[in-house]
């Protein structure tokens, strides 16, 4: 066991774990950030996708100790404070989820795509999402939601260098949609 300082969703958090412990289990079991899902443990299904320095990685095979000093962003940190990321809103508007289990990984892969290509083509979406399994078969709605989000994406969401928002609260009147 050793102590590691991780930057997760804009916060510096210290964890005391085995050097080989994958980020997935540090997030889920040590930090209680259960939005990142366990699907296969061998980087085949994409359920555990998170961003490291803006790039999508598979948390189930990446030791947390290797990520010290790099900004990590998880699904819990995708919203800008109180405001949903356009992909999250699009996922709700299109009613993408069936069981919903793979969707945080899907959204994180899509977010990395939009950060790189704000107006992706279908081919761009194919390439970016090919390694994220959905057992329920929500793929067509995922594609639709990515296109919808890309049409409505405020520019502040596309700073790929940032690991997370600053979690300030933008007070808005409830009911605004």
């Amino acid at each position, binding site marked *: 066991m050793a102590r590691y300082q991780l930057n997760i969703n804009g*916060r510096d*958090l210290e964890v005391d774990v*085995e050097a080989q*412990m*994958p980020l*997935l*289990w540090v997030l889920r*079991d040590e*930090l*209680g*950030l*259960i939005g*990142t*899902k*366990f699907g*296969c443990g*061998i980087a*085949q299904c994409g359920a555990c996708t998170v961003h490291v320095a803006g790039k999508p990685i598979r948390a189930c095979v990446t030791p947390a100790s290797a990520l010290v000093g790099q900004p990590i962003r998880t*699904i819990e940190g995708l*919203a800008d404070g*109180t*405001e*949903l990321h356009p*992909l*999250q*809103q699009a*996922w*709700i*508007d299109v*009613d*993408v*989820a*069936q*069981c*919903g*289990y793979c*969707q*945080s990984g899907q959204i994180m892969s899509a977010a990395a795509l939009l950060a790189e290509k704000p107006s992706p083509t279908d081919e761009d*979406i*194919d390439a970016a*999402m*090919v*390694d994220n*399994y959905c*057992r*329920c*078969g*929500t*793929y*067509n*709605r*995922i*594609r639709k939601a990515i296109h919808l989000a890309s*049409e*409505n994406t405020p520019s502040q969401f596309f700073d790929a260098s940032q690991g997370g928002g600053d979690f300030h609260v*933008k007070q808005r009147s*409830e*009911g*605004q*949609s």
Partner: protein
Amino acid sequence: MNDHDFMSESDRDIDLVRAVELELNALAETTDQAEPFLIKKLHRRAFLKLSGVAGSSLVLASVLSGYGTAAKAEDLGSLVGSIELNAFIKVSSEGKIVIYSSNPEMGQGIKTALPMIIAEEMGANWEDVEVLQSDVDESRFGRHSAGGSTTIPRTFDQMRTMGASAREMFIGAASISMELPRDELHAQNSTVSHLFSSKSLTFGELAALAVKQPLPDPKNLIFKDKADYTIIGTSVTGVDNLEIVSGLALFGIDVRVPEMRYGAYQKCPAFGGKVISANLEEVKKLPGITDVFILEGNDNVRELSSGVALVGTSTWAVFNAKKQLRINWDESSASKDSWTQMVSRAKRLHSQPGETLIAETGDVQSSYSNPDHQTIEAFYEYPFVAHLCMEPMNCTAHYKAGHDGTPDNLELWIPTQAPTRAYPVAKSLFGLDQAQVKIHQMRLGGSFGRRVYSEYICEVIAMSKQVGAPVKLTWSREDDLQHDFYRVGGFQSVKGSIDQTGKIVAFEDHFMGMTYKGGRISGSGFRATEFPMLNLKNTRATQTMFDIQTPCGPWRAPGANTTAFVIQSFIHELAVKAGRDHLEVLLELMGEPRWFDQGNVRSLNTGRAADVISLAAKKANWGRSLPKGHGLGLAFHFSHAAHVAEVAEVSVDASKKLKVNRVTVAVDVGPIINMSGATAQVEGAVIDGLSTMLGQKITMEQGRIQQSNFHDYQVLRLPNAPEVDIYFIQSDYSPTGLGEPALPPLAPAIGNAIYAATGERVRKMPLTDEGYTI
């Protein structure tokens, strides 16, 4: 009911409030740097209605200064003073409506659909509605289960009754408050209004008085006319969608309770093997491991199989340690099943009738020997497949030993299709009465029939009891794939003849299926009423069963998911032999509109069948000419009280690379509750059907499953998903379920389309075994 009672009851709901609280506690425990942030539930619905409006944003979170109870009280603020109208509905004086969803949610959308029915009959505004998962209490909520596409047909009237009785209580309260006759009052938009003046009172204003109204006699309730529906039939986004896209706790695997430890369980790779000994002491020394012990099991694969349990401080620790286990297994009574041997045996038997006669009409033999008839036969094969839920099997148990004369008790957090099935095993294995067992039903990350058995529940109860602490058991993907209750594989030998006019006049099926240790397996059997047995004068169905020890169970549309492939492909073979159009032959088989079983709306209606077949064909522009290497394929199947027809459009190149361009689906399940959810089920069934047909196959040798994870058991990927066009015939029959019946027609539609494109017949799944790629 006073405020305290209400809050304590809500506290028991493992819903967002509890989940966020647990998350806050977890963060507070692990770090003092983390700021809590809390999703506010209030008025959430206002944001979540499907808007279709671009660029909308959402106020999501509010940072509160306190932890724990302060946060919870704030969150429940608007519910204080709520009044229970009946088991399913609570309304606060501020007009907030809580509707409990009592059935397991596994992605089929029931947690949204059932409350829509209640809200519709109530006259509620959907934006005022908050849906919470109910506790498990069949005396209050009725049966808690999901499966067989039965929840909607079983509960439609129950939900309407709940909503309509609440509506009548509001109208009764308004009649008193406004001193107006009941029949001049009308409930809509969470308000009771006077028909002849501008007088109105909101549900919130009426709540206190409404709860004092007598409960209406269900016999006197009048349900809304469907022409007046404002919620049923619309598209409503799933009630858990905000939590899902935000990564908040919903699923069984997300449960965290104080002092919880993490568990893993290793069973014998050959089903039925038992632990003789293992290197327990060595593994116990590994980092993060607190306990390693053998569970004897009770020799019931649905309950507790023998194995080695590991408990530790993280899932990773127990998964890692599990790989270091060296176990001596007694395999003397373990499975020796071999897929290769099953295939050989079936091929030997295929040209002869089966051992058992299932049904017979007319005389197939004389049809075959008629020199004017043409007779063909074919052998079809389909493999075992796994459920492969994205969320592996898991369960959390807290077994609390009694002391000073108090009894033991057990708290369970289970993602399951059948929560109450935990009671009998808690009794038989652990001696606990129902009153000693508290069950929380968690959202399921997929199920497809998998989570109807209780073995993962039994395993974790035993582990929690042994270590004296709450334990969350998580199966690795390898455990999940190699210890499933598989969709049973099998074989069918089919034969049929056509007369000189090209009409199908005889059909025969020799069904080769499986039994498990002599017992029936879900989906392995041929039904005497199977299409086209009742459509033809000369039919015969026989059956031969192979006894196996590989556990099998229901898998989305049991039986139908394989029999549709055989029969709907073979009908096409007969049509091709006759040189006739498949659509014409299929409609001819249906004949005049009639029920197969008069008065039974769960039986095939040839008129409903012909309507969906014709609609799918029309929408797919059936009969159009296509470029070389392209083809259209049609199939119909009746299952789960649903009539579904599908047309697939495919292209196949010289290297057998397949592209499914589009699938057109026509469905009659009566009225649709949630249009978004219903289309999702059909889209999902098509993609699931294609995924399974294309490349999924579980094989076993020496009783051991030969696949282990996603690298050798693949799921269809996003770029290969076809477009799916869906059309509903919303007939006036009572609504039936849609989780399953859109899957069975997919495989034969694809197979028939491949034939149209290439002239090559598909008689075996998966397609990758036949050299196809996608």
